């Protein structure tokens, strides 16, 4: 079927990439693209597909990062198991925040603000409590082995995050074609009409926030294992929330491949400027500028460029 051509081709390219480009730089680049694609997609399925704009997705990311790391460092639980625990914790936090906010009827910027407030609360809490390592954060002891989610070769990380990215895109594809996805789109477009047509808007919104939280938290665990160090500001900070939102917005919200495109661009700009200069901030200047340019001229994100080309070819 033609619907499968794009994802299958993308997957083939992604699978072959590290076999062709074998340098550490190239593989690290691929890992970062896929990593941002995962957390960007996590934001996108809630913010783009269901229209529930969040400024605090770091709360799920951080929950995931801390959950598996604490289990590993303090209780000796294998991080592969921790990954599942993180996803469960992310889903739980997502469902909790959503249930609370939507029960009280929060919408739009009010919902965005409460997610921000929760991320802040979690950051402060982990910063203050000794159990989580406080402001110093947590170091994961080095013990390189695939069984320990610390691959001796970067390529192991690459294929792990590729699996997560493929999963995230599969979720988005499924949302585009399923009843659940249609209901989310209805909620995004007009919540009253959705209710009139028999949609339990509260339940659907809680479900998508749980799914988004789970995916985001899995991304958090990957981050912790890849960098082997986390602290409250890095994983719960507003910058992380903004990063996810940007990846999705710049690529194209509510689209399947938007976050992937946004992630590629974010990484390209980030790594590119780092190669050129030591000065801090340049990549984000470009990225913030891009956000403005895109909203001004491509309100649906970069994906519009692709659509234009395809549209022309078909015509």
């Amino acid at each position, binding site marked *: 079927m033609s619907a499968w051509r794009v994802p299958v081709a993308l997957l083939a390219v992604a699978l072959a990439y590290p076999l062709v480009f074998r340098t550490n730089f190239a593989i690290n680049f691929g890992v970062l693209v896929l990593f941002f694609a995962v957390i960007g997609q996590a934001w996108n399925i809630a913010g783009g597909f269901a229209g529930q704009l969040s400024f605090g997705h770091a709360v799920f990311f951080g929950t995931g990062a801390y959950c598996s790391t604490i289990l590993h460092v303090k209780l000796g639980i294998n991080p592969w198991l921790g990954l599942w625990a993180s996803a469960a914790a992310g889903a739980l936090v997502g469902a909790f925040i959503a249930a609370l906010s939507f029960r009280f009827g929060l919408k739009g910027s009010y919902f965005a*603000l409460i997610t921000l407030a929760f991320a802040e609360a979690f950051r402060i809490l982990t910063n203050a409590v000794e159990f989580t390592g406080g402001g110093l954060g947590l170091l994961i002891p080095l013990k390189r082995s695939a069984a320990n989610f610390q691959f001796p070769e970067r390529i192991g990380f690459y294929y792990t995050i590729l699996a997560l990215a493929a999963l995230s895109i599969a979720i988005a594809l499924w949302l585009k074609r399923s009843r659940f996805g249609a209901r989310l789109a209805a909620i995004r477009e007009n919540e009253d009409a959705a209710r009139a047509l028999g949609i339990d808007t509260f339940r659907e919104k809680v479900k998508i926030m749980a799914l988004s939280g789970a995916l985001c938290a899995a991304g958090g665990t990957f981050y912790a294992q890849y960098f082997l160090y986390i602290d409250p500001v890095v994983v719960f900070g507003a910058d992380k929330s903004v990063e996810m939102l940007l990846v999705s917005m710049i690529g194209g919200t509510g689209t399947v491949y938007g976050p992937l495109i946004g992630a590629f661009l974010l990484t390209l700009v980030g790594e590119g400027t780092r190669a050129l200069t030591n000065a801090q901030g*340049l990549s984000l200047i470009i990225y913030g500028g891009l*956000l403005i340019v895109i*909203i001004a001229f491509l309100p649906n994100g970069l994906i519009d460029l692709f659509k234009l080309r395809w549209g022309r070819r078909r015509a």
Partner: protein
Amino acid sequence: MDATILGAAVINGLLLGGSYALVAVGLTLIYGVLHIINFAHGSMLMLAMYGVYFLLVKAQVDPYAAIPLMVVVMYAAGYGMYRALIGRFSHGKDENILLITLGLSIVLENIALFFFTGDSRNITVSYSDRMIELGPSLVPLPKLVSFGASLLLCAALAWFIARTDTGRAIRAVAKERHGARLVGIDVEKILAVSYGIGIACLGAAACLLVPMFYVAPTVGHLFVIVAFTIVVLGGMGSFLGALVGALLIGLTESLSGLFLGEALGQIGISLIFILILLFRPTGLFGGGR
């Protein structure tokens, strides 16, 4: 608990609230009129603070004497930004305004990082360390000045909005954008003016904050989430609300710091934020949503 310590914490909290109010009044004005959260608020404050810093270091202009200049410059910057970017490129969608201000804040903050590095800078003026005895505690003079100024600023804004023609036009646009257009008000211009005034408040705020705060590219972060909280707590669009909200938040921060310790104390603000969003999203002094 010792009454003196408690008293000192209360005074400290109120003074802190005064500083917060300086930042929050402009934000609440912008929210009240444009109905958007101005994400660029913190970074505009940061830029203004650098402005004040360099005026002092390079041109020996005293921060307090720089107030008129900074207010004018920041007004022009806000008005220009609205005209050139926010109003033009938002395509009339609120989310877009929000994202453009977010984009601006990222750009401005990182431009500061790029040119000024991440180092924080302090200044000293003759009155930086002057202490005034206030009941049980000794208070630095700049804190008292900024507290008084925040009261003045709120009163001045409230007067301006209630009594002047421009103020009336702003109120009309805030309430009924469409109706305002029908009676011949240049709505786009009024929106730009409102944004400009909101940013101009930051010019004054920066002059009052620099004598007691460090300046760094991320200094806006310290204020901005707190300012969001204050604006929601006070009722988006209400000046009195912003002032009262700021004082309450200052007190909360100071007292929860006293009882819960420095690190955990900050959580008081987030909790209040969450509770107010859930139970009274219109805030203490807000009208309908």
